[in-house]
């Protein structure tokens, strides 16, 4: 059988070699159909006693065809597409016929998910044999069994740690983790695979073996129970209320491992279907992967951008403080947006003097606050005193700050503060885009502000965020801000045109 993505080669011992042909994307319609056809053929053929899965590519660097997946615009279509492939893999895994994967080169998530369903995995002894994990936070999550099989294979804790990392795992480490079962020289790969097949004419995964079911990881074991409770909190704290992929990953693992693989695969596919349509997922994938710029901005432009961006963020925090918002609320709003630090802590880090350059004639009271603080040597982090007191590893907001600037009795909601900080940051990026850009490519700037400037990743960049959340709302909200807060919220026509064009 020779399909455009897969070729099946029989030998005289009843062993078929399923070869995935050289390509670097997976999970598109054609691949899924070819895979399904191959598996049906293997299933129907009585002559086939065992299967070796390999690739004629140098690497197993199969990735998802994101253009294809994002083009599936309704839940039913996404779910059915994903489950078609995952059901085909499941069928192969449960035939009883031994399946061995030969693993070599660079193995990415798509490749990993394909090989995990095999009963035995043999890695090529080679320094180049490596598993490349990509942090789930950036929206790529396992969808064809990876969230179900990896924890069953190597453990819950170990899987979550790998999926939430950018780790590169060597073949030896993979062997230690039980991710592969054996490492052999290239010349021995096929021989060893056949040896396994001949020795194990009936092969099942541990999770399908009734005698081994009680050895499977259980989320409600004493150890895993406390693991989940604290891991959920630390992940929630780390991602604030953004990056839904992290929640979805740990949820698929938890829910799936409370049941069997068949239900687990459905849970995973439903979760993936939901996640891939989430606005943050789309924004991140579109900016980070699908529109990754080929051109790189000059370092000096990036530096200018970054400096101005950080100073503007700090200054907006000081303005909020002067309007009576409590310092804790301002700082927490900044952190909830996933800026690394709250604006006041940023001011300290840059030296509070930095705020001055951002102020205009309407900000006299802000300037006077900065000067009063400087008079008493509260210059910022450099002398351990600014908006915060810094002591060794501890820090807290300067308790006497409220003597200088009392907080209002009635405080705004944190969402209002987040909105103000986000709009201010976006407007700053747009202003600088007009000022510095010699490269008329908003997508490259989106990539740059995320990667190099410190603009929150989940937004997909300033232009992307506005486009995804509605240009009209953005224009209206800015007009509202401009009325009360001043000219820094007045949008330039050029920017409006650019947003409309992306």
């Amino acid at each position: 059988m020779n399909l455009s993505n897969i070729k099946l080669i029989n030998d005289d011992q009843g062993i078929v070699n399923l070869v995935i042909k050289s390509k670097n994307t997976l999970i598109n319609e054609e691949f899924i159909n070819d895979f399904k056809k191959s598996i049906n053929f293997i299933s129907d053929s009585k002559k086939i006693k065992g299967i070796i899965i390999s690739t004629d590519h140098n690497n197993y660097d199969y990735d998802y065809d994101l253009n294809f997946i994002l083009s599936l615009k309704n839940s039913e279509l996404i779910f059915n597409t994903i489950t078609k492939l995952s059901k085909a893999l499941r069928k192969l895994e449960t035939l009883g016929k031994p399946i061995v994967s030969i693993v070599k080169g660079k193995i990415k998530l798509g490749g990993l998910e394909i090989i995990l369903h095999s009963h035995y995995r043999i890695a090529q002894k080679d320094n180049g044999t490596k598993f490349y994990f990509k942090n789930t936070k950036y929206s790529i999550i396992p969808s064809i069994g990876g969230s179900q099989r990896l924890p069953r294979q190597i453990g819950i804790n170990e899987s979550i740690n790998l999926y939430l990392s950018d780790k590169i795992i060597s073949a030896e480490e993979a062997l230690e983790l039980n991710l592969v079962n054996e490492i052999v020289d290239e010349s021995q790969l096929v021989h060893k695979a056949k040896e396994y097949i001949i020795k194990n004419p009936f092969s099942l995964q541990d999770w399908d073996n009734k005698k081994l079911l009680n050895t499977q990881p259980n989320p409600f074991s004493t150890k895993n129970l406390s693991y989940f409770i604290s891991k959920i909190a630390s992940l929630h704290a780390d991602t604030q209320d953004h990056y839904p992929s992290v929640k979805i990953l740990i949820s698929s693992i938890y829910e799936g491992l409370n049941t069997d693989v068949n239900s687990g695969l459905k849970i995973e596919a439903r979760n993936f279907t939901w996640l891939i349509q989430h606005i943050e997922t789309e924004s991140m994938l579109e900016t980070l992967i699908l529109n990754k710029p080929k051109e790189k901005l000059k370092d000096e432009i990036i530096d200018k951008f970054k400096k101005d961006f950080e100073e503007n963020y700090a200054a907006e925090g000081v303005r909020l403080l002067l309007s009576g918002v409590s310092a804790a609320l301002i700082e927490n709003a900044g952190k909830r947006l996933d800026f690394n630090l709250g604006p006041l802590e940023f001011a300290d880090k840059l030296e509070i003097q930095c705020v001055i350059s951002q102020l205009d004639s309407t900000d006299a009271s802000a300037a006077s606050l900065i000067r009063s603080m400087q008079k008493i040597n509260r210059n910022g982090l450099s002398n351990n005193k600014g908006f915060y007191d810094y002591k060794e590893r501890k820090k807290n907001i300067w308790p006497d700050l409220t003597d200088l600037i009392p907080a209002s009795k009635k405080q705004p909601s944190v969402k209002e503060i987040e909105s103000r900080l986000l709009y201010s940051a976006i407007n700053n990026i747009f202003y600088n885009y007009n000022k510095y850009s010699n490269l008329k490519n908003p997508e490259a700037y989106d990539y740059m502000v995320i990667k190099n400037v410190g603009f929150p990743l989940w937004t997909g960049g300033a232009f992307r965020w506005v486009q995804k959340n509605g240009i009209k709302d953005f224009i209206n909200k800015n007009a509202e801000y401009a009325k009360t807060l001043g000219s820094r919220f007045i949008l330039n026509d050029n920017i409006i045109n650019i947003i409309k064009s992306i």
Partner: protein
Amino acid sequence: MNEALIFDTVRTPRGKGKKSGALNEVAPVQLASKVLKSLENRNNLNTEDVDDVVLGCVHPIGEQGADIARTAVLEAEWHQTVSGVQVDRFCASGLEAVNIAAAQVMSGQSSLSVGGGVESMSRVPLGSSGGAWMTDPTVAYNSYFVPQGISADLLATKYNYTRNDVDSYAVSSQQRASEAWKENKFKNSIIPVKDQNNLPILEVDEYMRPDTTMQSLGALEPSFEKMGNHGFNDVAILKYPEIESIKHVHHAGNSSGIVDGAAGVLIGNKKMADKYELKARAKIRSFASIGSEPTIMLTGPADSAEKALKKANMKASDIDLFEMNEAFAAVVLRFMEALNVDHSKVNVNGGAIALGHPLGATGAIILGTVLDELERRDLSTGLITLCVGAGMGTATIIERI
């Protein structure tokens, strides 16, 4: 509507909830059946007249599983027609069980019921039943789950209760409990736990530390700081962004004690009072449960008390004595502040900080405590309330007859 009359209240002494605790050798079903046996004997009941036994139990797994209420009925050799049901409203389970028993009587569907509870924390440890609330990622994320100790510290932070405030409260709980035992104020309800040979196992609450002082408490490290630093503080602040950082003020000395124990309240209608010539000691005026914000979790008592007061057409000032479960010192401080109630009316014989909190049983225990004290002082009305996991509160108002 019938009146739900309280005829009797009994409880075991509370044993330290660890292997070295005196009640560790007693199975929870035995604790519960001793309570039932005692209600039967003290009131000369023909148990065929009891319609139902409702028992609170927060970890109904293992030897507390499989409907411990019915199991206790069988073990107490009550008539086989007596049904049993186990209920879980976390820390208010024991009071909830009383309320359910009262509701059965009020609605005319029962003539005589028992409400009570049991928990052997030394044998079925805290948290052992797990639950989606804390372990299911979707649920825990969406509800901003933090463990109760973090909630207690969050409450103290939000309402500005200092370490000094919570420790002072704890010292007074120990002093009051110690005084109460010296004056034998619990004698009416306490049933000593004995073995099958009638040999004593435990006769007094063994958790108390009457020598507790501000200095001795001052030496204790906060219990929830380390846990908080592993993400839970940040989750709490996500929900309460006005807070800069959580101040960890609670520790083993100002939080409720982990103990074993069981309790029961005999509730019935007028017909049963007449049949057994039982004195109706009090009636249930009203009861209520509410839901409140789940991350801070422990603010429910004031809301549930207000709701029960409203139903009874009463004000907080109409209540003579309060029992507010001392889950954590800050919870009681907040309750007194929210209802504007003086400490002299609240937990006058100490509370769970000194005596311990056997989760499923506590609500029924403190109802008995306040009724005994109302009788001793010849006062009329008592309000019992507990804070409840996942942000709830339950309250019951009783009035002496």
